[in-house]
């Protein structure tokens, strides 16, 4: 599974992307967040308040209950501020 980070999420995690192989109990965005948060202090800081985070699965915005699978591209970022 490819995980991407943007904006301050990227800065806190300390990397822009990584390949991960979460265990079988990681089935959706919410359980992936909990699993990623345990990977490093940077991850923990980035994922400390899930309400501040938004996610995309395979480049579509996704809610916490959206399923994730081994070949997915999953991204985490703050609410968008373009335009």
């Amino acid at each position, binding site marked *: 599974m490819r995980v991407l980070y943007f904006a*301050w999420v990227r800065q806190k995690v300390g990397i822009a992307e990584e390949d991960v192989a979460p265990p079988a109990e990681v089935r959706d965005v919410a359980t992936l967040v909990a699993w990623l948060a345990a990977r490093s202090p940077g991850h923990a800081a980035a994922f400390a308040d899930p309400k501040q985070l938004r996610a995309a699965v395979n480049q579509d915005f996704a809610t916490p209950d959206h399923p994730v699978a081994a070949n997915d591209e999953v*991204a985490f*970022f703050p*609410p*968008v*501020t*373009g*335009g």
Partner: protein
Amino acid sequence: MAKVLVQQAPFDAGAETAALTAGRTDVGGVASFLGVCRSDDGLDAMVLEHYPGMTERAIERIAAEAEGRWPLTGCTVIHRVGRILPGEPIVLVLTASSHRAAALESCAFLIDWLKTRAPFWKREEFAGGTERWVEARAEDDAAAARW
């Protein structure tokens, strides 16, 4: 089918407008919105980060939504990324239609949805080296929810 560009380079709004009317006589109006970088609070520069791939996809979907809701003869969205100085343009939305209301409404719709549904993030750089990520604004969500 909208023209969507995500690029570092500046754009030529006049040329993009001309392209929407060139060679056709069914266009009654072209509405546009040009978003420009302000220098609030002593801003030195704005740095726009985005999600390559998803960004274009998201904008194309928003444009397709506009084309489904209003009878447009053309639609162009150009959004810059990278470092942008105060006074420089950030985003251009152009909509053309036979009827002015369709052009005006779809243009407002597009910029409202771009602000809340396209994966861009703005970081402000200030004199002295401090920086700050721009926070999403509730009023932008409200503006987007009108449509």
